[in-house]
């Protein structure tokens, strides 16, 4: 049995060994919030946060995630209270079709946890791996800046 720590919960899984983290999340655990658009590390849609870093779950072997703290889009809100990044995406209209949004939000969270006051350039580089075909990018930049400020205030209080 493989033990994975996902969204602060321990899951016991009977893995064959070759499953990607994406497959485990979606197919074994029903955590379908994490999407994929290419399955070959080109789109960023499958991004989750592992040990504080944004990683692509489509090219991450689940077996290599043992003992690591994994957060998916389902684990971001605190009860019914949305994470500041989630709330900022709604407030700034940074959502169109929404398919890229879980991955986009997880990349943004990883970026802001390290750097709550990113410049526009830092945001653009931080999200370079996340494609959005609706091209909501400008509103996403606004949302991330706003979320960074809120996170800083929350930390300070």
């Amino acid at each position, binding site marked *: 049995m493989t033990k994975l720590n996902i969204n602060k919960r321990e899951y016991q899984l009977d893995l064959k060994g070759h499953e990607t983290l994406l497959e485990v999340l979606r197919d074994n655990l029903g955590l379908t919030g994490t999407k994929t658009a290419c399955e070959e590390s080109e789109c960023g849609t499958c991004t989750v946060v592992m040990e504080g870093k944004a990683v692509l779950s489509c090219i991450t072997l689940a077996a290599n995630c043992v003992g690591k703290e994994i957060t998916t889009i389902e684990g971001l809100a605190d009860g019914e209270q949305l994470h500041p990044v989630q709330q900022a995406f709604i407030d700034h209209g940074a959502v169109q079709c929404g*398919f890229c949004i879980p991955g986009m939000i997880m990349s943004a969270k990883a970026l802001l946890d390290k750097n709550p006051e990113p410049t526009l350039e830092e945001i653009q580089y931080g*999200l370079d791996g996340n494609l959005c075909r*609706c*091209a909501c990018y400008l509103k996403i930049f606004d949302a991330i800046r706003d979320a960074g400020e809120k996170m800083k205030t929350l930390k300070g209080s």
Partner: protein
Amino acid sequence: MAASAQKTFSKEYVDPVGKSVPRIDGRGIVTGQTKYAFDVSFPNMLVGKMLRSPHPHARIISIDTSKAEKLPGVRAVITARDTHQIKFGSNEYFFPHTVDQMAIEAEKVRYVGDELGAVAAVDEETALEALSLIDVQYEILPAVFDVREAMKPGAPQIHESLNNIAVILPVNFGNPDRALKEADYVREDLFFAPAAHMAALEPHVCVGQWEIFSNKVTLWASSQAPFKCREALAKTLKLDLNDVRVIKMAVGGGFGGKLEMLPMDFAACLLSRKAGGLPVKICCNREEEFLATRRKHGMIYKIKSGVKKDGTLAAITGEVIADGGAYCSYGPTVLAAAIMRIFMLYKIQHFRMTGYRVYTNTPISGAMRGFGGVQAGFAIESHMDMLAEAIGMDPVEFRLKNITTPNMVTINKMVLTTNGLKECIEKAIESCRWYEKRGKQKHLCRGIGIGIAADVMGSKMYKSHESAGSIVKVEEDGSVYLFTGAADTGQGSNTALSQIAAQELGVSYSRIRCKSGDTEITPFDTGSFASRVTFISGNATLLAARDAKNQILAIVAEDLELDIDDLDIKTEEVINTKNKSVLMSFDKALELCYAFHYGKQIIGRGSYNPKTTPIDFRTGEGNVSGSYGFEAQVAEVEVNKETGEVDVLKLWDAHDIGKAINPQSAEGQIEGSLAMGLGYTFMENLRFDNKGRPANGNFANYRIPRSIGTPPIECIMVETNDPNGPFGAKGMGEAALLPTSAAIANAIYDAVGIRLKELPFTPDKIIKALKEKEQIESLSKGA
């Protein structure tokens, strides 16, 4: 007690129209709870895979599926033998001869990827292995991949059409030959706009289930037009319409690619039947997505026009050749739109353009956001700048002289009522400080350019009518349910329609729950295309909300013995409009409706079909839309002469959208369109290899706009308050990407004096053009 049954709703969003209220589905999306067809799963669900042709053109001699059927884990295999072999298409109403595709081809395959069978198995591995065990014998036929080759006599014949021309569209008005002769200046240009791909992030995906004993089919789909999908499924499966239910899930982007039933939708249902009714899920991988869904037409656009010295456009003539790929799909209407949009923009008396929609052995071209207008916009708006320059006129003044006006009928009988085009141009050039910049930043290799565009709000090109229906149900607890057939594909139509319903009903937006795009539950709607939903489905929703409101007011009037014509509901209160007094709260009025002796359920209905005249494709005449939208766009660029790279410094888009129902959402549509326009201008080009397959069919090689490189965009809303629109609104969502390529081409010309006529503008093309310009200049100096 009725009072205790009522819920408490936030009053935060009363009078929601014109406000940027949060998306109705926002919390679901940002938490990953929203369910896409991609996420649909059932116990015992099978995985389906399509059997695709490896040859671009071949006759099917035989198919042996026996080995695949025997493979453990395989539950169903289908070929054309299992089907009724009925063809489907998207322009059945106007162009019946273009209904040319079978869900599972029986005799011939016409491009690499063409479907000739499908399998369903317990998992993907088994399904793929089963595909490899199917033995198909082909007679290979010669293939043709280039439109100009395909049109030559003697070229391989892909369908039964002369020279592979599926559709010829001649559009003729006035006497263009005479007008060209009488013009002071005439020029001809040839433009190339390449194939591209919608590349929605959510792939095409569906789950089909055939309930064997009740003979009922359900498809959970990622669809822009669930009712249209139902129609095609019923037709090809030979079922009654009401035996087929299409449930549109959240859609992860469509952009035109999810307007039609695809063979995989058909196959999922039929496989399910053969597998005893187990649900079957089929999901395209990214390679299949580029290969075998829909793509944008590549176009060759020849345009020849004459102008008078005073800047009056004398005549426009030309020819459009559209690369259709293997089947017709939406080709005829895309071609029509590529030719006829110009009538909404410019006052023209003499016009002749002929369009050819040509088959090739390449992936199927359909309707991508802009419906042919992107390719046309690039050609026409570049050409207009060249005409203006030739007679020494500023491109803005040239346009202002020739553009259409409010309350006019165009030469092809389009009725333009509100028309904010002039205001759009004026606002855009004011905002970008046009006259300070145009022609004055060459020393910095900087330039500024303009392009304009117009769009329809629905087109009545799918069937005889363009109607939408809505139901507004007001429950005893005060909650309001909106049922609309419209398909929210991410553009936010559920939000905009809910705002319209709340505004008309006089209640807070937070009361509204919206159910959309389920063919068994919601009223009919033709779907999300032609920028029609806010205008057409919005009107239907407005009427349904008004009907519900009148039902409530009738009870109040009866109870208080007042005249219903003196009553209205505004900001959650029933008011007497005569003396402006508040009679009761909305909740109280509902309590009354559902009280002991009334017990009246409030169910409002609305149906809307715009007043238009059908288009006659033999002449190009017809008022296709109930309203028309307009815009002007300006781009400012800086060209790096060493590297050939272009930096887009800023874009301005002034847009006549009638009225912004949700300004934030409208801005999102404009920003997204412009970014997509930038993609088509600088990087997107779906190339084909020597078998007609996409040569760059993945995100590593088919580059789409990213966060890096997204320039600042200024959106300017021009609100012309259309008398036919819901609260004055028009549709939007497509127009904004029509002029982007031309605005940039015109800006590059202003910056460094090169004229680019072939998209995309890659650095190598720019460097080549700069070198050619240098050579010409040095030659003329030498002479």
